[in-house]
């Protein structure tokens, strides 16, 4: 039931991007989609154990008991990919917001339909 919920979060963001006319709302939808994608990657890399406290983060705490770590740690690769993805996401969102501010300065509105009307 976890993966469909994550996908539902993505669909909420997609609905916001497709159906809203406010540019800031569209940026919010993009941010929600980005969160859902990041969360999906981390969910894919989780390794379940009988007890919740047995699961280990991919960080070594001692040189010994490598085998124990190897069988209990979660997947480090999706975490590494998502770590860069989060920072890229904030850069891209800042760029989109800069465009929104510029459009507001130019047209005096956030509404994309009104912008189209004002242009003609």
């Amino acid at each position, binding site marked *: 039931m976890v993966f469909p919920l994550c996908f539902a979060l993505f669909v909420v*963001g997609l*609905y916001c991007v497709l*159906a809203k006319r406010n540019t800031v709302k569209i940026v*919010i939808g993009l941010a929600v989609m980005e*969160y859902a994608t990041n*969360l999906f990657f981390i969910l894919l890399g989780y390794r379940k154990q009988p007890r*919740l406290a047995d699961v280990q983060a991919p960080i070594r705490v001692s040189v010994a008991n490598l085998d124990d770590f190897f069988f209990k740690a979660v997947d480090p690769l999706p*975490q590494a990919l*998502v770590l860069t993805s989060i920072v890229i996401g904030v*850069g891209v969102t800042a760029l989109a917001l800069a465009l929104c501010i510029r459009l507001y300065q130019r047209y005096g509105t956030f509404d994309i339909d009104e912008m189209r009307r004002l242009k003609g």
Partner: protein
Amino acid sequence: MGIEIIMTVIMGFTLLGAVIAVEIKNLLSAVIALGTVGMGVSIAFLFLMAPDLAIVQIAVEALLLIFLIRATLKPDIRATHAHIHPVGLGLVVLLCLGLIVFGFFAFQPLEFGKPVMAQRSEIPSSHYLREGLRETGAANIVTAVILDYRGYDTLGEATVIFTAVIGALTVLRAKAHRKKGGPK
């Protein structure tokens, strides 16, 4: 309490926050609701044993909230019509409902808690976990992956964020308009 129950509760909270952020009229309220979504994702990262990501996510969330509030906070924010044309809206709602149904059935065979790493042994993740400390000397395997094994990824990330910053600087620069005499 199993991890599925915890994750379902957190995802429900996140989904509620996302729906509020999408549907509420006031832009400032929408931005704050988006903050709850990021907070929920950060808590989910903590439960999924990704502490690096939780730290980055919570800091980035604060930053993004400041950016968004900066963009929406103004004296005369006029209410815009919420949605696109009704026919298009109906199509979009149908598409989204279809996608949710599709996702519900498409993700059934995907079993939570069993990564590919645990099913097959000869993939990079296993190598990183087993040899990461010996080969790179870094105890934090995630850092070892992003800065040693997969340095190209981080180099590309640096390029992307550099481009995004240049884009934002160029878009928001006021001096270029003065040469042309201002927009008509």
